């Protein structure tokens, strides 16, 4: 089984400052790490290959220094990884990011299964996984809690869907986005790290892609325009809404309406 895990490098701490003029995250001097949600995806993939054989690869889009998380993934047990890096990818929203990743995936090979984390800790959109699947025309499901079986041409997963946990079968190849906190990700091995060589970390740019139209990438390929980015204000005030899901939704709508937020 050939599995690909999509990963992202994110700021190492939630206390990242935003430049008030440009609205861009100030990443200089801030430590970075692999998106914590991606670690659950990696652990899911590595456990699957331990059970059913095969190999795991990773892919990321980011600046050249994002190779650090490819290296980290190799230290955790993946075979190799690819960084999609090109200045023309900069400023991408979820759509352009998913498109870039789908182009990169077309280039790196054919996979039986693609696994994404639930969301990232810096963007929090939780949309990239499903959009990659659309671009690659693959069946996909989000909120996956576990992969129970691999049956030749399909897999059986349990997934959290609103207030239910459903078990479903997906035809391979497919893409799944796993929920957070579904396993304890293994730790990177220092011993493996000592033998990781750069030839296991590949770089691709727009020039390597099938679609060479620059307007489909980065800021110009983005459907959304970011007006302003700011850190959320911390607020510990709690307002509990009781009742069934429908009653809660009505009450929540009434509350937001009364505050003129909707």
């Amino acid at each position, binding site marked *: 089984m050939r599995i690909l895990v999509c990963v992202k490098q994110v700021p*190492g701490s939630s206390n990242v400052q935003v430049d008030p003029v440009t609205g861009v995250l100030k990443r200089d001097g801030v430590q970075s790490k692999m998106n*914590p949600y991606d670690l659950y995806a990696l652990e899911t993939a590595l456990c699957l290959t331990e059970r059913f054989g095969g190999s795991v690869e990773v892919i990321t889009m980011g600046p050249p220094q994002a190779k650090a998380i490819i290296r980290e993934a190799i230290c955790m047990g993946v075979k190799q990884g690819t960084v999609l890096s090109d200045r023309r990818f900069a400023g991408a929203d979820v759509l352009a990011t998913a498109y870039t990743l789908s182009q990169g995936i077309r280039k790196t090979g054919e996979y039986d299964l693609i696994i994404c984390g639930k969301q990232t800790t810096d963007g929090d959109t939780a949309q990239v996984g499903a959009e990659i699947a659309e671009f690659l025309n693959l069946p996909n499901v989000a909120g996956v809690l576990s992969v129970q079986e691999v049956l030749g041409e399909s897999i059986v997963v349990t997934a959290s869907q609103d207030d239910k946990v459903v078990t479903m079968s997906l035809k391979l190849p497919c893409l799944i986005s796993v929920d957070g906190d579904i396993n*304890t*990700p*293994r*730790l990177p*091995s*220092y*011993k*493996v790290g000592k033998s990781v060589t750069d030839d296991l970390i590949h770089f691709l740019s727009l020039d390597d892609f099938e679609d060479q139209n620059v307007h489909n990438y980065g800021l110009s390929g983005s459907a959304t325009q970011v007006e302003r980015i700011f850190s959320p204000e911390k607020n510990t005030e709690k307002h509990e809404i009781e009742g069934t899901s429908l009653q809660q939704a009505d009450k929540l709508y009434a509350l937001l309406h009364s505050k003129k937020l909707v």
Partner: protein
Amino acid sequence: MYNKITPEDISKLIGFVGEENVLVGDAINPDYAHDELGTISKMPDVVVRVTETEQVSGIMAMAWEREIPVTVRGSGTGLVGAAVPVHGGILMETTKMNKILELDSDNMTVTVQPGVLLMELAAFAEENDFLYPPDPGEKSATIGGNISTNAGGMRAVKYGVTRDYVRALTVVMPNGEVVKLGAKVAKNSSGYSLKDLVIGSEGTLCIITEAVLALVPFPKFSVSLLVPFQDMKSAIEAVPKIFRSKVTPTAIEYMSRDTILFSEDYLGKKFPDKRNEAYILLTFDGSDQAQVDVDMKLVADLCLEIGAVDVYIVDTEERKKSVWSARGAFLEAIKASTIEMDECDVVVPVNRIDEFIRFTHALGKETGVRIPSFGHAGDGNLHVYICRDQLSDEEWEAVLKDCFDKMYHKAEELGGLVSGEHGIGYAKKDYLKNQFGDVPMQLMGGIKKVFDEKNILNPGKVCI
């Protein structure tokens, strides 16, 4: 020998702290009769919750005059019965004295009341870019309790123990007098260090009502290493070799696979690795990332050289949580694995730890009792637990005495001491006496008498 509490005494206590802070009869929760381990139990006659030094002073003056025993209690997380009112009387609870009074950034100190919890102090220090280094596993313990046992914790290897961070204390003497000991200074050669005598005295000499604690700048970078070994002997033998490399980790803990499995059951969370028999967990911290990396790599390479199966890097908040939360739950996890247990908190020279652990394994086999352990490999302080499991009352009593006698004897033989950080309290008095002999015990008894001639403060503990 002591006077019984009368309705007049209760009225006076209500006068000091108000009716809502005086508990009698059925209003006293049975948990006030014991501490965390629960092997020693005795209900107090009255529980008084104090909030101010003046209240403590007034109550002690009354108790002194009336000759009523007083036992001070923080969160009740002790393990040797030190906060159990073995002679009844007044149980004075300090958890409501929980104000952080002052942060002095110029002198790098924080002034607190004794009921502030360790986790609250740690969070407050961090918010202000400082670190309060003592780091015992029990984060819900009060600072008053930590000072009273001279608590150590995991960072002792690099930063030392509670005593190293207490600059000054405000205490109430058994007769109610309020005294200040020490000062907000880094050096002190001014006579006998009474402050240091009070630290670790387990509430037998006076009552701490305020403490000035030293802080250090918060180390901006830290990384831990989880190092698996094929067996405990190889894991423990690595520790002196790490010290010989001249690198000082912040913490070096050891743990066995058994203990990790208890913790998984207890927390319902998987540990990142449990394929090996034994592990050491190291931390490095500092304000210079390059230096932290150099130290970490030097020790990682050394561990691989001396036979570690691998070296796992614990570098992010999430990874640290997955490893350290398990480590923090070991005591509770072992407790949950049996119906009753008792503990031994000996400290031995670092290069004799392996010998002691092997001794406990042999003892377990000899007696047929389960004896799991974990602890601070970097400072020689071991936490060894004797689990009752299926034993009858008689068998349990006999086996406990037999195991304790042998373990404390072995610790002494290896050049160690009865307690590294949990204290003597009520449970370990005999072992302290056995090891120290007449002269040190007479000196301790003499000191107790100078502070508390009437022996009303936490009687029956440590040396009396």
